[in-house]
Every structure is written in C-alpha cells, then in structure tokens.
C-alpha cells in the first residue's frame, strides 16, 4: 500500500481548444474539450498508481464543494481517501491547452490557509496511516499557514517506521530537506532552474548535484531530474543513468513528472533491476505526454513504449 500526501491539492479545470486568444469569447465545439478533474502532484500520482493497479491511500487537506468533488473523483478511480477537511475550499487550477498554437497557459490558485489545529489533526492521522503503508509520496507545494518544516517532520516519522519517502516538489521546499535523507528526490524545476542554492541546468550539472546529495545522505538512494524530458538524469549510489525517449510526440505535458514517479514506484515495488525501473518510469512519463489526459489511462501503452527509451549508464 502506498500513501500519497498532497497538502495543497486542487481541482484542475482543463480547457483544450484551438486558437486561444485573450479578449475573445470562446465557445467550445465538439472537437474541443473541458475537463474538471482532481489535481495536485500527490493526487495525480495516486490516480496513476491506481491505474497501474497499485493500492493507494491519498491524504492531505481538502475543503468545501471542491474538496468533496476531489475525494469523490479519487474514489471513483479506486483510490482510498483520507483527507482532512478544512473550513476553506480546495483551490481550482486552470489550464488552457491551445492545440493550434501549441501553447499551455496555467493559472494556479494559492489555496486555502490551514489553521494549526487542522495541521495537528493531519499529522496524527498521517502517523496512524504509516502503520499500513510501505511507501510514502510527499508531493507539491505547501498551503498558506503550514510551517515549512512539516515535510521534514513527515519524512522523519516515515523513516521511524522504516518507510521509504519519495519527495517531489519545488527546489525551494527541497533544499532545506535534503539533509533529512528522503529515499528519492525529484525537484520540480520546470519554472525554476536553481537547486541546492545555485543555478543548475544540463546533464553534467544534474549528475554532479545528484552525486553530491547521494555521497552525503546515506538514506537517499535516488536523485532524479525529470524536467528535461529529452535527457532524464537519475543518480543512484552505484551509478547514474540518462534516459532518452525516441520520436517524442508531445501532446500535453501536464502531469508528466507525476506519471513518471508513479511508473517508478510501480516498477520499483516489483523489485526490477534499477535500469528497468528507470526505463519503465520514463515509458510511463512518455505514455502520459502523448495523449491529452493528464494521467495515464492506457497502461498497456507503457509496455509498448519501453523500447522507445534509450538508457545510457554512466559510471
């Protein structure tokens, strides 16, 4: 059983249309699409894991009508929910994908403010859930009112139960958490190219940063940079890997890293060799971005895409 924690989830309002312009009234036609789906990194990972057949519990904060919509949709997808409801409402994130101009416009709401007693209630619930899971995913941003140290507390609590933690969030949250030694670190660097307090880009820089972390943190086994999709860099204790997908046909980048991590977790739990786990993760990410939906629906396609991932081993 896997536990995903999404402290700042969202309802994703996704509009897929042709010829998006500001100052213009758009009426969707039958070739276009509007989707209202559960969102937030941890929630996306839970949806993907459920599609892959892995039993998953999703927790975090939810609230209002949107919070109930979020939980209902997750349960319909087979995910067990254990969200703490707050007074405020779950935020709505809006994405406009323009197929004609190949642009993606995103507006992310900041979400509700969390009072301290709700955070205490969530941490109590989290500690209990640790008794029934064998992997924890902490993903996404922190809502207002939540102290930055909460992820550290959650990592330490999970480690106390001998549970591996996958951490996927923005560098500003990860930087102070590196020394707590999460099992897997995946910085979300799509819009921010600094990590570990310095500008970071390119294969060599990623390899260097990953090796630095692994050499100091005995609990960290994987540092993975997924945002440069043509060269995904994974650093492990023994060696490093660069994954390159062939003949990319990007349709929708939304949810790429979430699908990648779900693929990783799914394959890792089957005790596959590391190179195969990473290949599967990349194939899951690739499968996700070549269709409109932000989560994987056709899991058979992952198997078919395995051969399109070139894995280079770097010592």
């Amino acid at each position, binding site marked *: 059983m896997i536990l995903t924690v999404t402290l700042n989830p969202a309802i994703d309002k996704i509009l897929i249309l042709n010829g998006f312009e500001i100052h213009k009234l758009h009426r969707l036609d039958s070739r276009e699409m509007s989707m209202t789906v559960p969102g937030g990194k941890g929630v996306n990972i839970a949806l993907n894991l459920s599609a892959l057949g892995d039993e998953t519990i999703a927790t975090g904060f939810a609230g209002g009508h949107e919070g109930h919509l979020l939980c209902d949709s997750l349960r319909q997808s087979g995910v067990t929910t254990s969200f703490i409801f707050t007074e405020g409402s779950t935020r709505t994130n809006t994405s406009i994908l323009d197929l004609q101009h190949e642009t993606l416009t995103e507006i992310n709401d900041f979400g509700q403010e969390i009072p301290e007693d709700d955070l205490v*209630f969530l941490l109590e619930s989290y500690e209990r859930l640790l008794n029934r899971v064998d992997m924890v995913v902490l993903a996404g941003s922190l809502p207002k009112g939540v102290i930055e140290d909460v992820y550290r507390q959650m990592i330490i609590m999970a480690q106390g139960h001998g549970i591996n933690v996958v951490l996927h969030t923005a560098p500003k949250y990860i930087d102070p958490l590196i020394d707590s030694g999460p099992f897997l670190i995946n910085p979300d660097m799509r819009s921010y190219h600094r990590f570990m307090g310095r500008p970071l880009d390119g294969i060599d820089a990623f390899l260097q940063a990953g090796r630095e972390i692994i050499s100091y943190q005995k609990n960290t086994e994987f540092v993975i940079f997924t945002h440069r999709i043509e060269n995904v860099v994974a650093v492990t204790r023994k060696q490093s890997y660069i994954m390159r997908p062939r003949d990319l046909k990007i349709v929708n980048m939304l949810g790429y890293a979430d699908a990648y991590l779900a693929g990783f977790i799914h394959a890792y739990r089957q005790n596959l060799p590391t190179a195969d786990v990473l290949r599967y993760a990349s194939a899951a990410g690739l499968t996700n971005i070549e269709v409109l939906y932000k989560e994987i629906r056709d899991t058979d396609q992952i198997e078919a895409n395995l051969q399109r991932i070139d894995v280079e081993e770097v010592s």
Partner: protein
Amino acid sequence: MKRVKDFIYKDILSVNENSDLRRVIITMKRHRVCAIPVVNQLGEYIGCISEQDILNASVPQYMKSMYNTSFMADLDHIIGHLHDILDKKAFEFTDSSYPTVTPNDSMSYAADLLFRSKKTALPVLEGKMLIGLITRIEILTVSLNGNKLS
C-alpha cells in the same frame, strides 16, 4: 453473491480516540457524515460516534430523569451542557458495539444489518483496520444496475 468488498465506499477518515469532542463535531460537519469511525493510536478501529450518540450525551442527566413526563428538553440547557463537554475525549462517546462488516460478508448481510440497526453507514474492517464504509446509498444503488442483492 454480491460481496461487501465490491461496493466499499473507500473513505477511511476517522478520529483518534483522544481527539476532543469539538474536533469530532467539526470533522462530521465538514465531512458531511452522520457517524464517524474512532481509532486508537495504532489506527485500529475501536467503534463509531454518531450524531445521536453526541445528542444523547448533550442532554443533562437531570433532564433524562424527566423523559417519561410531558417534559420538553430546553435547547439552552442542551447547548450549555454540550459546550461543557466539548473538551472531553472521543472515546467517552464511542459506541464500541456499533455494527461492522468485513469485505467478504455478503451485501445481503450488510443490508440486513443496516436495516435492523437503523444506522446510516457500516464500517468495513479488515482485521482491526478500517478500509471503508458501506452506506445506505451503496445498498440502494446495487439494484440500479439490474442487480439483485443475493
């Protein structure tokens, strides 16, 4: 035969036995449920608290003794008394004999249990762990897909 495991409402939100009554009521209101499972520190299920359990506890003792007369409970007294017990722990109000089902029970059994006990939802337990609920609407919607219970 229809089994509980195929109809579970997979929500496992619960309160800790040491949560206070204030938190129990807040959680029930925000979560829109009339009864909530109570678990211990290890996450093991120990019972449920329903709105009725809290109402019962809210009526001051001296009022209960007058139930058999034409006496009508005074709302001010009930609210005042409820206010006084808000800091008490959840386990004091927990109904440990609340009916439960297991994933392998038949839906007929669950329906019968819900009907007889007049509860709104039954916790589904795997060992001591809560894995979800069977609610009245799960029972009622079985028939919508052309199914029969047994």
